[in-house]
């Protein structure tokens, strides 16, 4: 079992050509300890998804340094598993084939990969749907399958880009609690991008609050709530207190 650490220093992202450029993000300084769960919340358009794309290596930073386990980031890595807002399952492949995609692409040994895929599908209650096509599944089930796929190659870090954003409220809550349990079992480093404050607190060890464009870190709040967390955690006085604090920070004017 291994979890990755992450550190960003002076990271910025600028889109477009000189003269008409948009300053989307940063400068951002952030350090994430191995095995911690960090939630990032902020208004839409604050560059939080850009932040994830930079950390994922899908886009280069315009300036600054990003290091994973002390080594500078050069691009996407097999040590990182990503769950996107959309499930991004291939409609022509079965659920099992979709979950096995990382093994196919990375050329991992077939039998152990298959066993792990089936194990993950069982853990997420999808075993009976292994042979089904994605269009047969509900939104929540598809997103569970996307989680299985992200976990297949046993990544050291999970990047979650509003993974429950496209789901209805009930499924959201159910899945986020499931993710909380799953994460505790696995003990991997996780970075969650979300616009849902409760979700951010329920899942995170820390909640990072970002300001509107250009996205900067406005506050970094530790969540000192006991684990395992469940539905009742949301009623805990401390939870409500943190929630109020986060809300105040999000809606505060920059000069306050």
């Amino acid at each position, binding site marked *: 079992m291994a979890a990755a650490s992450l550190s960003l220093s002076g990271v910025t992202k600028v889109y477009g050509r000189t003269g008409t450029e948009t300053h989307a993000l940063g400068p951002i300084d952030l350090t994430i300890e191995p095995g911690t769960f960090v939630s990032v919340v902020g208004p839409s358009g604050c560059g939080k998804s850009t932040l994830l794309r930079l950390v994922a290596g899908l886009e280069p930073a315009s300036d600054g340094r990003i290091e994973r386990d002390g080594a500078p980031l050069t691009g996407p890595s097999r040590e990182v598993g990503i769950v996107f807002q959309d499930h991004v399952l291939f409609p022509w492949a079965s659920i099992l084939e979709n979950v096995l995609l990382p093994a196919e692409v990375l050329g991992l040994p077939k039998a152990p990969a298959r066993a792990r895929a089936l194990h993950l599908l069982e853990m997420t209650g999808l075993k009976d749907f292994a042979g089904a*096509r994605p269009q047969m599944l509900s939104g929540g089930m598809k997103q569970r399958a996307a989680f299985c796929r992200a976990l297949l190659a046993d990544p050291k870090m999970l990047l979650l880009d509003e993974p429950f954003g496209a789901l209805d409220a009930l499924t959201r809550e159910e899945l986020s609690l499931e993710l909380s349990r799953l994460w505790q079992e696995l003990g991997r480093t996780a970075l969650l991008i979300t616009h849902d404050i409760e979700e951010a607190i329920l899942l995170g060890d820390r909640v990072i609050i970002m300001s509107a464009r250009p996205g900067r870190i406005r506050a970094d709040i530790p969540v000192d709530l006991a684990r395992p967390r469940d539905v009742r955690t949301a009623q805990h006085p401390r939870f409500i207190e943190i929630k109020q604090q986060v809300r105040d920070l999000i809606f505060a004017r920059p000069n306050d």
Partner: protein
Amino acid sequence: MARTPRPAMADRLTTPIIYLVLLVAWEACTRYFRVPGWVLPMPSAIATTAWEWAPELASNTLVTMRETLVGFVLALVLSVPLAVVIAFAPVARRILYPILLGLQSIPKVALAPLVILWLGIGEWPKVVIVVLVCFFPILVNVVAGLEAAPRNMLDLMRSLTATQLSIFLRLRLLVALPPLFPGCKVAITFAVIGSVIGEFVAAQDGLGYLILTSTAQSQTPLAFAALLVLTVLSVVLFYAIEAVERRVVTWTP
């Protein structure tokens, strides 16, 4: 329960019944107005002629079908790799697309005499004309399909450190499959027309040749019979491609 099959049966019968009514009306009108057979033959006369000329119709159908299918398959084999090159090499796109577009814009009827001049009056010039009319709809659809891979799926593949080849084989080709078939369906109907164009210019056999010679000799019923076979051939080939499509594209894109 006993009532439910009835509307379905009625739906199924609508088309044949309408066709039958039209046929009867045709027969009745030609009889009533005494239209000369060499202008517009009666359906019954066409049927009798078709029966009498069945061996000739069959052998000529075989020729036209062979030209059509060989040309279509060749067009498919040529246009798919060409589409890949155009989709992934901007230079190739800049050089090839104007040429292909120009070639597509030339009326194939105007090109057919030249092709016959260069290749003679056998089956190959017809195959070449079929390729010329077929490749464009296939090519355009495949190029569009290869470029249609959604950004989030490309991000997923890139996040898995997939090579360009792996992205092509596991993602782009499969995204391009559903648009390939509409292109093929358009192409196959063009293909039948293409072989007839070739046969009209110069040929020794084929359904187009049969239509040309029989109208020249005022054997209009035979021309109609050949025309009918040609239509059936085109429709059958269209549905054959649709059947392949249903077996291959089993997902909703």
